[in-house]
């Protein structure tokens, strides 16, 4: 299997979301970014990097982000559960759905 990532992830997504005609934008892979906490659980390099770069020593990182990709946090799953239970009726209501997801995020469920 090949895994992939968004280069300069969050910054580029933020720019994309600002563009005219874009309702939402995100990454499909189960990557979780927890501020101040390393998402790369292999810890072979002890770099404590954030997930967007997998780790600071990439490409020397042993797990190449795979560990983090395979282990999304519980609350990510809970949020996906909320998403699954909401109707994906039309593209405009997706924005309302995103807002509901943000509300759910503010109330940690697990």
């Amino acid at each position: 299997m090949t895994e992939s990532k968004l280069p300069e992830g969050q910054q580029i997504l933020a720019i994309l979301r600002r563009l005219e005609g874009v309702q939402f934008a995100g990454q499909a892979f189960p990557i979780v970014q927890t501020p101040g906490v390393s998402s790369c659980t292999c810890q072979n390099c002890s770099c404590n990097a954030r997930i967007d770069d997998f780790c600071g020593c990439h490409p020397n990182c042993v797990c190449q982000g795979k560990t983090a990709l395979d282990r999304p946090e519980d609350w990510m799953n809970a949020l996906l559960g909320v998403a699954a239970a909401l109707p994906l009726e039309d593209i405009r209501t997706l924005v309302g759905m995103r807002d509901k997801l943000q509300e759910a995020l503010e109330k940690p469920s697990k």
Partner: protein
Amino acid sequence: MAQHHLIHSQPFTTDVFTIPYKDGYILHIPEPGLVAGVDAHFCGIIEDLKQNRPIEDTANNRELLTVLETLQVFAPKPVPAAEPPAEYRPTDVTLSLTSRCHLRCVYCYARAGDKIQDMPTEIIDAALYFVADNTVWHERNSFIVGFHGEGEPTANWPLFRHAIEQAKRLARERGLEVTFTMSSNGIWSPAQREYLADCFANISLSFDGPSEIQDAQRPMASGAPSFPTVFENLQFLESKGVDYGIRATVLPTGLDSMVPFLNLISEELECNYVHFEPVFFTGRGIDHDLGVASTDAFYQGFLDAYQKAVTRGGELGISVTYSGCRATHFSTNFCGSTGPDPNFFVSTSGIVSSCFEIIDPTSAKGQFTVYGRYDPGARRFVFDHEKLEQLWRFGVDSIAHCKDCFARWNCSGDCFARSDISLENGAIVASQESPRCQANRETTLQELVRRGLVMDALSRSDQVSAITDE
């Protein structure tokens, strides 16, 4: 009227898809896994860029080009290796120990239990020595032994124990760790389940639904119900902390039972992962009338029922999946049946195939997936390196009907055994969409949208947190 200048961009070097979605479009760039909801005007700009047509020189379009450049959609792609490795040295093996089975599932692809064949211990030992020694050769510290195939792995219990104990011994002697995986029917005695709980950290259980479904589709060989035994054994695994996932095969009669099954699991078990799979029409699935009047209608029914199950699973905290719904994958190959790292699957008679289901070397697909055998004279496995190279070169880009599909890097050409492709001398001579393709696309798109939305919400929340922290 103000006239805008035009911008000429480079051609895309990676797939960029715009998919009509209700009253808008989904922008999907598989390689970085990007999913965005966009309007018709934005979609038009993307289509212009795809066709290498110039776009208006506006601030918005310049920012869009910056985003696309950062996403590397114009960047040259690395050239893949031209040749496969000279030596084939797998470190994982999947053993098909026996064709025996306690059950007579009405759709069994292997017709397990009809004819009895067990793997000789000589072949088991040779396979285990091979992967253990390869692990040392690769300077790795662990190898995997899986059990799957023509029957229930535990049905010949002495043989099963021999394989487990032999693998443990070889690992111990070499200072390695061994991990065991298994697909099982869950029919174990109290003594057997104790042993399994000691050896396995995770087991995939075939369990089709509430008792009326399970007992009709997966009866014991005697015709007796299997539900009570399987259910009790699942509860036992939970008591021992063994992780397990449920794989449920869905027949037309079971479409309405998917949600009730999730309710039952939520009420009685701790399982949070259920894989629903529409029945495959192979083996006993051809012999029996499974109530499928039209394959297309069955898949549409499955699609509707699956979406309801995903919704109910979301409410219950159960992750619901289907093999064709693979929003989180980006790969050239569906599984190890094809591609650069083929499965090392050994059948009861010592045939080596990359696919657990295709072990007849004379069948059209078997001529492709069967790449070796155990040689009793030499007491070792021998491989056809030409076939290994064919497998190595095979990816979704070899399949013509996948060329324009937005899900092609997710579904990766779908299950090789199920795909509607014809092969001659290792090359595809014809291919067309199978009834699964529509189900794969629809389920993958829904999952992509959900994940895109969730990640969008998470990212915005992180931004809020960052501002608050400052």
